[in-house]
């Protein structure tokens, strides 16, 4: 079976140790986690994990089964790139002097649709949100001039389909 990029969304109780418990499910099966984001969700006290993996559909189904089996997991889903809206964020720290010495940098910033979030005499910070390839492209362009620091977040994603988590929780409590 062919590998594909899957975005796994997990709704969980906001409990200590759950990140570890979920991570071990991937580790046990020797699956590399490409990116992982944990945040609050639209429901109070419910966390949302977004995990990106590159595996076969058969594997992802089994992983979802194992994740949902965990006592504190409310529901888990997997989606292909076509089924969700997703992006990543990245920060670039760059020498301020380059802004004046290298005119091309201004064009790169303009064309990349990124924002300057802070400027100091020594450095400025550029923020860019978007698809992985867009961030990669900006990185490539800027790295020619030198990047002082670079960081990229995990993927965040919402699905085109409804998730109905509140409904599931209501049902469980009745």
């Amino acid at each position, binding site marked *: 079976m062919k590998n594909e990029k899957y975005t796994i969304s997990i709704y969980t*109780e906001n409990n200590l*140790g759950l990140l570890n418990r979920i991570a*071990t499910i991937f580790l046990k099966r020797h699956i590399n986690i490409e990116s992982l984001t944990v945040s609050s969700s639209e429901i109070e006290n419910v966390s949302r994990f977004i995990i990106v993996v590159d595996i076969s559909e058969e594997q992802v189904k089994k992983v979802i089964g194992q994740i949902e*089996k965990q*006592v504190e997991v*409310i529901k888990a889903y997997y989606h292909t790139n076509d089924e969700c809206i997703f992006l990543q964020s990245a920060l670039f720290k760059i020498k301020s002097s380059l802004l004046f010495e290298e005119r091309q940098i201004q064009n790169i910033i303009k064309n990349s649709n990124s924002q300057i979030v802070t400027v100091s005499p020594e450095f400025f910070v550029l923020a860019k949100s978007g698809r992985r390839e867009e961030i990669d492209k900006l990185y490539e362009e800027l790295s020619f001039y030198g990047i002082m620091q670079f960081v990229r977040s995990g993927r965040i994603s919402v699905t085109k389909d409804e998730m109905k988590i509140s409904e599931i929780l209501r049902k*469980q409590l009745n």
Partner: protein
Amino acid sequence: METITKTKQEVSKGTTVKISGAEAMVRCLLEEGVDLIYGYPGGAIMPVYDEFYKYKDALHHVLTRHEQGAVHAAQGYARVSGKVGVAIATSGPGATNLITGIADAQIDSTPLVCVTGQVGSHLLGSDAFQETDIISISTPVTKWNYQITKASEIPETMAKAFYIAKSGRPGPVLIDITKDAQFGEVDFAYKKCEKVRSYTPVPEMDKAEIAAAASLINKASKPFIVWGQGLTIGNAEEEFKAFIEKSGIPSASTLLGLSALSSDHELHMGMVGMHGNYAPNKLTNECDLLIAVGMRFDDRVTGKLEAYAKQAKIIHFEIDPAEVDKNVKTDVAVLGNVKDTLSAILPLIDKKEHTAWLKEFRDLYDIEFKEVIDEQFHPKSGGLTMAETIESINKVTKGEAVIVSDVGQHQMIASRYCKFNKTRSKITSGGLGTMGFALPAAIGAKMGAPEREVVAVIGDGGFQMNIQELGTVLQTKAPVKIVVLNNQFLGMVRQWQELFFDGRYASTEMTNPDFVMIAQGYGIKSRKISERKDLNAAIEEMIACKDSYFLEVAVEMEENVFPMIPTGSSVSDIRLK
């Protein structure tokens, strides 16, 4: 005793009392109906042990000789009784010593609550004396775990622990409790847990699935059932019997499913798997419908997956949705507790008899009998065989005993040949294959079913892995019967070396001590036999003994277990020699 009853009444009236965390822990256990617990004390759990001292009339603590012994004893207790087994240990090495048993309970779905002491919460992460991160260590092998750092968390957490351990597909729960939480105070009120909002223990039964399964069953001409421990855990033995008797379907057990159906039932076709019976393995690849009931298609059952029952439609009765399609792709998955789903399907099933199909099983059994069984039961020469010993135990116990086996050749022989009339009569380490399981598990089993005869059948290798638990037998006077089948080898590994490693016996030969002297040192009546003529009398003497008894049987050194499905082979390539 008076204080216990008094405080219990106060609790049931809904009023609260201020008590220490340690006392709250003991009171939680009592509220859950626990009266027996296995453990080993140490620094970080001493406040709870101090409460055990005060509550010793209500809660009996069994001091094992090693924490691994405690957790296996709790497993034996849980498996024989269906109740939650409880083990307790201190932090650090006490906690890590529980891990093997916890992993064993996880893979064999045994309900356990394990309590471990922990260093004070202000010391967490400081590498304090006997500090270990048992939450991280136990995460992959527990159904749930939690670290209590405040006394106030104890009642709710313990209620949740018991609920999770025993509901749905059971499993082990570990509760780690810091020393300051044991010393802290709590307004104690106990409410049993009945719901956790993120957790669905039993999936909803779907009528369409039941109907689809019934239709496949009614249409099948060569249906075959493989059942597992799900029947025992779900208390569905009667429902299962009614189901097979109406449908007339030949049925075989997994290793852990043994004894859920009595051995002499006419539709009982033996055991599937690597050392299972010839007919059910072979005919797995001949049936047109395979019905899996409360089992999980372990690789020791299926052999090579690509060649497992490919010709058949598959129905899977299962409580855990994660097991569906995990190893074997099913046509119809019937989710739910097997007790409910089997009751629901019964009225939809046609009454049938599969005479010709059954004959295929019997013919293959005759081949197995001629080629394998007869020779093991009635050897023409050589020393005693393991099978003869098991046969003798069958004769004397008349299938009424609980047989606890360890792991290896003797386990396979015991599983193949032991006769069972009652459910929950076969206790062994299945999924994890933990050597050293049987002796402590037998102690737990005897305490969980004191009215029943409990016979531990152990190899000389496994016996020495937890031999120290003879001390627990001595101290508790638990009248377990211990049979060591001594071939002076790690027999199963030796068999593989003989068959697959050109007979290079790397580290499988054992120089053993005088087991009889050791057992006598622990005050246990002991005997060793090596002659065929002494076998029956020795087993009779052992079973007749009111106290614990140790019997060493010197068996043939290089006996092999057959039939056998070599690793990576198809079930239909099962070898008779």
